[in-house]
């Protein structure tokens, strides 16, 4: 872990990202053609919005930079704290990844199989089963989430859920 003081805090980095992304999008609006029926083209309003967000991003960036300059000691402690907190985000990253896999699996395997696997895996990650009863609970939960919801939505609520491209199920 570096003991050097960061030039920017969280807010500063957030402001920088907002500034850069708004500026890039702003530049993309310049090539948009005008419309004959409308006094202002499709790029007019986006330019106002993106100009505003770019300005606010810059404001946040500058404010944070000045704050970091003033409170260097505080910034140092908060930086070390944020680094030490990284471990608590592991679970979050894992759950987001699992959800992404779930969505990706839905097209080839279908809603029922993908949901069954996702709910079982997610439940096990949140509270690892340590007994046969706990495993049974996971299986029941996954079955309800996958099969009972599918049945209710298709049969009674006219919501068609995806079938698997590979499994046709």
């Amino acid at each position, binding site marked *: 872990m570096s003991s050097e003081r960061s030039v920017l805090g*969280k*807010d500063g980095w*957030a*402001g920088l990202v*907002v500034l850069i992304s*708004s500026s890039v*999008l702003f530049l*993309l*609006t310049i090539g*948009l053609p005008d*419309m004959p*029926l*409308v*006094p*202002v083209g*499709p*790029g007019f*309003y*986006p330019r106002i*919005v*993106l100009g*505003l*967000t770019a300005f*606010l*991003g810059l*404001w*946040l960036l500058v*404010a944070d930079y000045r704050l970091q300059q003033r409170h260097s000691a505080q910034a140092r402690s908060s930086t070390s704290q944020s680094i030490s907190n990284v471990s*608590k985000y592991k*679970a*979050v990253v894992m*759950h*987001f990844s699992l*959800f*992404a896999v*779930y*969505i990706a699996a*839905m*097209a080839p395997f279908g809603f029922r199989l993908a*949901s069954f696997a*996702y*709910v079982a895996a*997610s*439940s096990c990650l*949140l*509270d690892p089963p340590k007994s046969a009863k706990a495993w049974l*609970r996971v299986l029941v*939960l996954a079955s*309800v*989430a*996958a099969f009972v*919801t599918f049945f209710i*939505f298709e049969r*009674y*609520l*006219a*919501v*068609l*859920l*995806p079938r698997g491209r590979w499994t046709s199920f």
Partner: protein
Amino acid sequence: MFELLGNGIATLMDLKYLVPLVIGTFIGVIGGALPGITITMTIIVVLPFTFGLEPLQGLAAMIGVYVGGETGGLITSCLLGIPGKPSSVATMFDGFPMSRRGEPGRAVWLGVYASLIGGLLGAVVLVASTGPLARLALEFGPWEYFSLFILALSMVAGLVESSMVKGLIAGGLGLVVTVLGNDPVMGKERLTLGITTLEGGIPFLPVLIGTFAFAQIMSDIEKLGSEQQLQTEAAQKLNLAVSHVKVIWEILTRPFVLLWASFIGLVVGVLPAIGGSAANMLAYDQAKKFSKTPEQFGKGAPEGIIASEASNNANVAGSLVTIMAFGIPGDAVTAVMLGALTIHGIQSGPLFVTQNGPLAYGMFAAYILAHPVVLMILAVLMRWMIRIVTVPKSVLFPMVLVLCVIGAYALGNTMSSVWILLVFGVFGYVMVKLGFPLAPFILGVILGDQIEINMIRALMTDPDPMQFFLRPISGVLLLASVLSVAAAIWQHMRQQRRGGNLPQEADADF
């Protein structure tokens, strides 16, 4: 008006509508009572179930969730000392101490009846004011609508506690989401970044579902290891028996607290996207300031419970006024309702009440009837509530996310909406971690197209942009926007001068 309301109530008494209302209210009570599950998340879960229903059936269920959730949250606040939702935090200040000193039944039922009365007082205002306000809004041209939406957005952004700039950025980012994809006036493609999914624009419901559901669930997952264990065993042994007449009398002998708190709740509800969490704290603070015995607050003062609960239920009525009269969601819950209306092809806004009279009065009726329904549900379920609300999160969270997927997928039977759900889930979580408020962001997403459409319409009618300032109502609304931001800046500067550190990462109100 009364005839239409009577018809609405008669319609709602039909089992076809009453059953969704009762089920929605029941789910709302449970969702509101579950710590870590907010009303927004509960209504998101209920949303896909409403797709196959008639509009009034779906909206009755959602209103049931809203009203039930506001009341349900007080149960865990009073009995476990853990607020079921942000708008019950102030209830806990006195509800839990009262419960601990051996009066759990009194604490809970004071809250329930205060909710009932506050909610019904709100209903009077809801029914009486929505029509006139909608008629007033009918006088608006595109200049006034544009200015009204700008006012809503600037108020929400300016009222953010931690940082006004972050509030404004969040609102601006919401507007950016709406400029991606296509121009809402001519349908011209713009800023698609080469992504096919963006060609038709970004649908707001997956954005809303993803942002709120993931921001909350992932924040909870972070804390799971360190979370305090619920004192369920002790709570399960609580005796909740109480004299209901005495409790009602106790509330009615404090008419000022009841009326003032309900009024605060209503006003806060009418203001866009502030929500019940602000209402209950403000009402609690006011009750304490006006009390002859402020030292009793925090030790089980009945006024604290009454103020908090009356305000958060009246807040629901205020939010419904805003969405029904102007088409502006008062909070995230009404934003989901707005989505449900859109799915059924119903245009919200000032014409909503006149063009959809039976539906509008059906919604009023649903709101009124939901209150006695909550009472009946709690009368039956109260003894089992503690057992129900201690369902593990390992059971709840995966189920909620599967229902979110269904909600997003069912919008257009396409997986792209589900990917949008995930993208904005990550985005919402990152926003919360960086201390950006979600309410202005969502309001920006919802109002973005309308702001642009009305701006272009105004310029097509009269190309002079000064009309936005010169037309009286539009000018006043824009002036109010500037004053709202200026007041927020002044407040922040004053706080900084006093040496108070502004909270950098305030508790997110989902």
